[in-house]
């Protein structure tokens, strides 16, 4: 047989439940990197090996290895943390990272530029405020998303609790993390990983909970989705979704983005059993030969939804009820102050690219630190890389707003499109990046705003998402405009998302440089300004006007011409 297991499967199997030779790699002073195998294992511990790609060639000339550093992604179910935790997150970022905190589309924060020697102290310090990074990356269930809905705090709290429970329930059980980073006792004898087994999942696994009508978590893009069904602010249960996923590989027509299928409704008490069953089916039926085809979406395509659903029901020992009707109206964040039913206030701050740092223009990092110093409620990181200062009593509202304005965290001069758009990290740190992401986003946005101004569509929000590669961290395949990095300075242009995350977009133009891209957008916006219907979103327009065909079944039609 020519078919071989993917090498990552052997690395996992030989890792003694994620220990690998991480201790030896950490002790090696001669290189800032880990051994190649450990660089795979480290992901399960929440960090990626990266290097400053801007410096690669220069350093090679200097007989120096690449400038290695690490990106650590914390586990923060639902993106909620306390002001005390924030102060530590901030200090650690200053002391042991590159002086920035990066909020992510997975509702957590990342540190970049951590040197190898600083990894252990960093993990220890966030652990002191009860934050870990287990399964931040790697072939396990990642950070669980949860709508940070500030409209109704009691409902949010209840749903958030489920996010935490799911996260805990699907956490790897190995003690490797505690042993290696927290100097925990080594566990004698064999150790079991009852759910995952010694090879864990074939690929990453993402879970989200949405509370309609907000689809800010893009629940359909997750491997496993829960849609909260409520009645009079009471949680009745969840519609369960499975098989969503974003990542594709350029020029490989066997890969495609996919929206999750609805499996049915379950009452809250079955939530964990269903979650575990979906993971177990993926564990047993997922593709362990080709990592490109290892996500649950391909497993479900192969098995068929009916067979998959039956397998989940069998393993969970439940039957799905018919899914309840739901209505989603948006996938973006709502900015500014919102008051909830209990009279507390919530301030959503737009954080460009989710990057929190101090620059000559704005002192976001210092500002948030000051706010954390007086804030009594909590912070919530949104799935659009923004931050909510949540549960503010009326009396403190003005003080917090003053601080936010003084530090450039609040501004009234941002276009709706900018506010609705996101970009991934990409260059110079992300090893996957083919083109720029967040470094390019602000200036690209400036140019796009000039066009929207020209055609008088500057009051309409267009959801635009920019990623440096086709793996889809910023969920570009459900944007009205998706820009997907193809090579240095070149992007594929995708059109046709519906602005609520319920429809995939489609490739419209390939491999555009900036000039071509802006020219194309100019034409499109001109057309949109002339031919749109009342209240018609840009994505809907591109479909109605026949610029792109809607994607109905991505496995069949995603690679069709527009």
């Amino acid at each position: 047989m020519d078919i071989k297991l993917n090498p990552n499967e052997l690395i996992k199997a030989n890792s003694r439940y994620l220990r690998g030779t991480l201790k030896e790699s950490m002790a090696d002073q001669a290189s800032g990197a880990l051994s190649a195998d450990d660089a795979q294992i480290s992901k399960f511990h929440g960090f990626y090996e990266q290097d400053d790609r801007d410096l690669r060639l220069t350093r090679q000339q200097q007989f120096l290895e690449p400038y290695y550093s690490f990106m650590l992604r914390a586990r923060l179910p639902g993106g909620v943390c306390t002001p005390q935790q924030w102060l530590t997150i901030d200090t650690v970022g200053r002391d042991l990272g590159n002086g920035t905190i990066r909020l992510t589309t997975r509702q957590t924060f990342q540190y970049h530029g951590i040197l190898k020697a600083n990894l252990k102290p960093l993990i220890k310090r966030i652990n002191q405020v009860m934050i870990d990074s287990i399964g931040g990356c790697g072939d396990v269930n990642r950070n669980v998303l949860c709508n940070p809905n500030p409209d109704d705090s009691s409902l949010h709290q209840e749903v958030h609790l489920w996010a935490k429970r799911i996260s805990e329930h699907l956490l790897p059980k190995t003690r490797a993390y505690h042993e290696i980073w927290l100097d925990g006792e080594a566990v004698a004898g064999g150790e079991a990983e009852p759910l995952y087994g010694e090879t864990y999942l074939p690929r990453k696994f993402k879970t989200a909970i949405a509370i309609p009508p907000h689809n800010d978590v893009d629940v359909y893009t997750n491997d496993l989705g829960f849609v909260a069904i409520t009645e009079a602010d009471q949680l009745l249960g969840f519609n369960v979704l499975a098989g969503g996923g974003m990542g594709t590989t350029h020029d490989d027509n066997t890969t495609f983005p996919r929206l999750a299928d609805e499996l049915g409704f379950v009452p809250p008490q079955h939530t964990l059993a269903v979650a575990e069953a979906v993971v177990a089916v993926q564990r047993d039926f997922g593709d362990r030969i080709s990592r490109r085809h290892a996500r649950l979406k391909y497993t479900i395509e192969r098995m068929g939804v009916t067979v998959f659903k039956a397998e989940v029901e069998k393993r969970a020992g439940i039957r799905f009820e018919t899914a309840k009707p739901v209505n989603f109206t948006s996938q973006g964040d709502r900015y500014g102050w919102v008051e909830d039913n209990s009279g507390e206030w919530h301030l959503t701050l737009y954080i460009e690219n989710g990057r929190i740092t101090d620059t000559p223009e704005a002192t976001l990092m210092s500002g948030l630190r000051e706010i954390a110093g007086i804030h009594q409620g909590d912070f919530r990181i949104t799935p659009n890389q923004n931050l909510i200062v949540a549960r503010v009593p009326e009396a403190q509202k003005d003080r917090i707003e003053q601080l936010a304005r003084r530090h450039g965290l609040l501004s009234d001069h941002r276009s709706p499109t900018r506010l609705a758009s996101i970009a991934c990290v990409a260059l110079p740190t992300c090893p996957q990046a083919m083109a720029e992401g967040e470094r390019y986003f602000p200036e690209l946005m400036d140019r796009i705003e000039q066009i929207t101004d020209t055609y008088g569509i500057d009051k309409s929000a267009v959801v635009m998402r920019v990623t440096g590669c086709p793996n889809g961290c910023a969920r570009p395949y459900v944007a009205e405009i998706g820009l997907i990095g193809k090579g240095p300075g070149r992007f594929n242009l995708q059109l046709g998302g519906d602005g609520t995350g319920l429809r995939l977009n489609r490739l419209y133009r390939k491999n555009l440089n900036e000039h071509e891209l802006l020219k194309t957008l100019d034409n499109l916006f001109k057309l949109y300004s002339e031919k749109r219907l009342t209240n018609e979103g840009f994505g809907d327009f591109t479909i109605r006007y026949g610029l792109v065909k809607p994607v109905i079944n991505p496995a069949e039609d995603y690679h069709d011409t527009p």
Partner: protein
Amino acid sequence: MEVAIQNRERFPQHPLDDLQLTRLQQGIDGLDREQLVWASGYLAALAAYQPKLKQAANESPALTLLYATQSGNARSVAEQLADRLQASGYAPRLVSAENYRPRDLSKEKLLIAVISTQGEGEPPESAYGLFSYLQGKKTSSLSDLRYAIFGLGDSSYDQYCQAGKTLEQLLDAQGAKRLLDRVDADVDYQSVAENWQQQIHSAVKQHQPEEQALVIPLQRSAPVRHDRNNPYQAELLERRRITTDDSLSEVHHLSLEIDPKLIQFQPGDALGLYFRNDPAMIDELLSITGLSGEAMVTLGRDEMSLTRALIERLELTQLHPSVVRAWSSLTDDHRLHTLSENIEQLRKFVSDRQLIDLVSTFPADVDEQGLVKLLHHQQSRLYSIASSQHAIEDEVHLTVATLQYQSHGRNHLGGASGDLTRRIEETDRLGVYVVENPSFRLPTSPGTPMIMVGAGTGIAPYRAFLQQQESLGVHGRNWLVFGNRHFHRDFLYQTDWLNYRKSGLLERISLAFSRDNQERTYVQARLYEEGAELYHWLQEGAHLYVCGGVEMERGVYQSLLAIAQTHGGKDEASAAEYIESLRIQGRYQRDIY
């Protein structure tokens, strides 16, 4: 000494001493069959045509020229003298101190020694054995011996020519008589040396009439020998900075093209080189002094423009006390006069100044020839070679740190390092020659473990070592201990070491980056931390190499003392003996600058 023991077993009858045999083995190492056949013929011819020379070396020699050199200067003086004596029909035995058996002293009739002095008045490494013999208890009377000493030194140091003085005392103490009084020479030693060689020549004639002497002159075998007086013009192939832009130390990797038939070197050797002084500095110098760059001046037998003399021939960056004194005599400045009389203050004065500082602070009336006359000739600078000729036949690699400092309102650049790292461009040429460093050599027995300790650019020779081992296919356990400021900025040749580790040639890499943490860690501390392992390696026969500055070397020595005590269960005295025994066995080799 493992190799020597092996050799004794293999060649029980050989007439060479251990070191001679080892060096012979090193010399023919890597020759192919055809070359070996040719070499055997060459040696046979030498033996056939110079029977008495061989005899002279074997029996008690009539006249021995002994040199102990660090930078090659002492050797060069001794060689010139040998040439002169041979031209008159004498057949002196020319021998480096490390190849000289001290107990042969009692058989000598005439001994002429040329010896340089290291940092704190110590002799060069190669003369340690000779000195400790003379200071020890086993010496016998040397009343039949006549000797002369030529000491080389630098009067800007406290212990000027101290090694020569010490040698004189030691020989006197054993009853040896002087052929001539000792002569000391400063950095600009050439004219003093020439005088002395003449004196020696006549004294030898007087003492030992020619008819008694051997009559077959030694022919130098190589038609062209590139040395300090006849440097090879090497072309710069490549230069690149190998510390990052944000590093405090600017270190460059240079690759020079050489003709492998004319320039031959071994791992451990250094390259001597001449450089061009900074034209901008010379413009300033001319404008301050009001001298004309085009004016013709005489240097020895050469005539050239002042500018050219300043750029190519004269020493402008290492300010010497004697130059300050000479300059002082041209001025009425009392401060300078007072300074000139106090050597302590004078030393301090020159430590952070160059000629330009002197000239701009103390204006004086001087003409073009006068300036030339008071300046020293440019001293060649030595750099450890960072490549192996076995691996890369026609290139020499150097690792050069830019010397730069701010003082007295001026940015100063080192003379050679400034030229090598800032001014010279690809395809430019440099005058170079090889300075052998026989006391810093790879183990002769392949596979002997090596511990290589280096700080900063002191890592350079180890690159040559491992390149050589790799290209020879030698496998062995090797351990690199390196120190510098920052891991990300100053880890010189990092990718080379990582590749050697990957290929198995380098087993262990220990690092001390002094500025990466709060507490500053240096190589000596790292060695001490890993002392158990280090002692274990030594017990297994490892050779230990140390290359770097004096301070580091001292620190490493202290660590070794402590390690021998902690891990070898020795008291302080026997720890010192242990290290000394390693040194004598050639297992503790140092290259210190």
